[in-house]
């Protein structure tokens, strides 16, 4: 089966700066993939390339198409929120729904109306009158009402309060997601999406440093908290990263020998957030 997104040697230069440096990755149908990286790592550039918003070097296929050349066709099957608060200030909420219903063959108007009805937002209001969080809710309602095969979300919940954020992710997983859909999501709040992701892509300095399913992470990585006096013995097992924590040392291992590690302390699978820190601080070679 071919991948939904397939990037080979994907590069993008801004002047002398390499925003993407021969990045290789693929995304399979039915997955919820988190694209995770520090600021300036190339997350946004990668998404822009995938969505046909920017020129790039290397090979990139999204839903079997070349994004920049075939953006119009691609947008029938893919929807995105590339940034928060990009709905124009003059646009009225009801006009926004009318417009998308008018031009998008896969837009389900009833669904957008239903999603908007759950908010405090009335149709006659213009975007400039709405708070940042409300604008995001409108944009999410419009986007989630599109029956897309690929949904790309760049920091979708920025500006939303905790309740709205959790409601959004609930809706995303329970109402929107099914096996025919694929979601690619970037966020700073790794902890918040950790439970819904099926795959992660770690990106740093324009390169993919980890491309893995969460299931594989559980078998491939382990962390063990070791008392400080036994740390040296554990270090002989070649951890790729360590950090101090409450008088203990937490050591991170790739392809661990679990039986040996169990002798040093309690072995656990690192969280995505911890693995991210470990990979980018210690093991990015």
């Amino acid at each position, binding site marked *: 089966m071919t991948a939904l997104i397939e990037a080979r040697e994907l590069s993008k230069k801004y002047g002398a700066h390499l925003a993407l440096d021969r990045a290789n990755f693929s995304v399979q149908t039915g997955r919820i993939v988190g694209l995770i990286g520090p600021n300036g790592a190339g997350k946004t550039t990668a998404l*822009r390339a995938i*969505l*046909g*918003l*920017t*020129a790039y070097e290397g090979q990139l296929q999204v839903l079997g198409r070349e994004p*920049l050349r075939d*953006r*119009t*066709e691609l*947008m*029938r099957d893919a*929807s*995105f*929120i*590339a*940034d928060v*608060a*990009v*709905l*124009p*200030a*003059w*646009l*009225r909420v009801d*006009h926004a729904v*009318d*417009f*998308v219903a*008018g*031009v*998008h*063959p896969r837009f389900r108007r009833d669904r957008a109306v239903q999603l908007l009805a759950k908010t405090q937002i009335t149709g006659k209001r213009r975007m400039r009158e709405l708070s940042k969080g409300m604008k995001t809710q409108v*944009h999410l309602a419009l*986007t989630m009402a599109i029956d897309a095969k690929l949904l790309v979300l760049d920091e979708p919940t920025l500006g939303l309060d905790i309740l709205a954020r959790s409601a959004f992710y609930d809706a995303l997983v329970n109402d929107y997601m099914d096996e025919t859909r694929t979601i690619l999501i970037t966020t700073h709040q790794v902890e918040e999406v950790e439970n819904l992701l099926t795959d992660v892509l770690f990106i740093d300095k324009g390169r993919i440093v980890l491309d893995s399913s969460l299931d594989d992470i559980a078998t491939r990585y382990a962390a063990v908290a070791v008392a400080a006096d036994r740390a040296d013995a554990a270090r002989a097992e070649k951890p790729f990263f360590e950090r101090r924590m409450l008088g203990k040392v937490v050591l991170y291992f790739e392809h661990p020998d679990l039986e040996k590690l169990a002798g040093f302390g309690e072995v656990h699978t690192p969280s995505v957030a911890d693995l991210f820190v470990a990979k980018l601080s210690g093991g990015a070679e």
Partner: protein
Amino acid sequence: MNTYNWLIRREFWENRAIWMMPAVIGAVMILVALFGQVNQVSIPLQLPSQTIGGGFLLAVGGTFFAVMSIYSTWYLLDCLYADRKDRSVLFWKSMPISDTVTVMSKLANALIVIPLVYFAAADLTALVMAFILSVRASSTIGGAMWHADLWLQMQVLWLYVIAASAIWYLPLAAYLLVVSAWAKRAVMLWSILPPIALILVERWFFGTHVIANQLGERLLGIAGLIFRDPEGSAWATTVVDNDTIRTPVSIWGFLNPGGFLSSPETWIGVAAGVALIAAAIQLRRRRSEM
């Protein structure tokens, strides 16, 4: 076609001035007709009634057309730039609408839709004013308002000038779209600087002013191409206070669509316009942000 419909509607939502400006102009003119001193207008009443009525329609229409030209110019400069400035381009590009269709919708709006809105507003204003004037200025110009053939000529003249302008000004309109799709700021300045720079460079290095002449011809030369002087019976002469005044009998002899459409300048302009439109589409495709 449906998509174009929605894109034009979107322009009306964004640019409420498209209909508000002609509405305000019309309202002001109607107010003047209602409350102005319309009986003291200094029009030599010896002139044929046809001439007075025609002059009235031309004055109303000309005012609307002049404002429309300025507004359309500004609109073309702003339309692609505004989407990038407020970053809403990221929303518009999430719709399955090609950059070609987007750019063409802006062009069609500026060259056809906005002129037609002003045309309708001019007609409506002239109609209301004619009613008011035929009551309030019945002793002077009020009687010259209702020549049905003049009203018909006015409709034809508007449509003729809109169509000819759309063709003649295509390269200038497309140039403004290129600037709008390209500039990171100060679109007005960027639209003016390149032609001025070219004119100066040409003058310094070659001592000639071909570009300046060409540009002037493109800006103002349309009148000489789409109209002609038929001489003879197309003109009426009236003597007013010892001056002989020549006035056109009707517009029919003056329209010159054949001459306009067979002029090489017209088609050179169209070719340049098509190339510039293609450039604007490419820029729109590649420049999503500032």
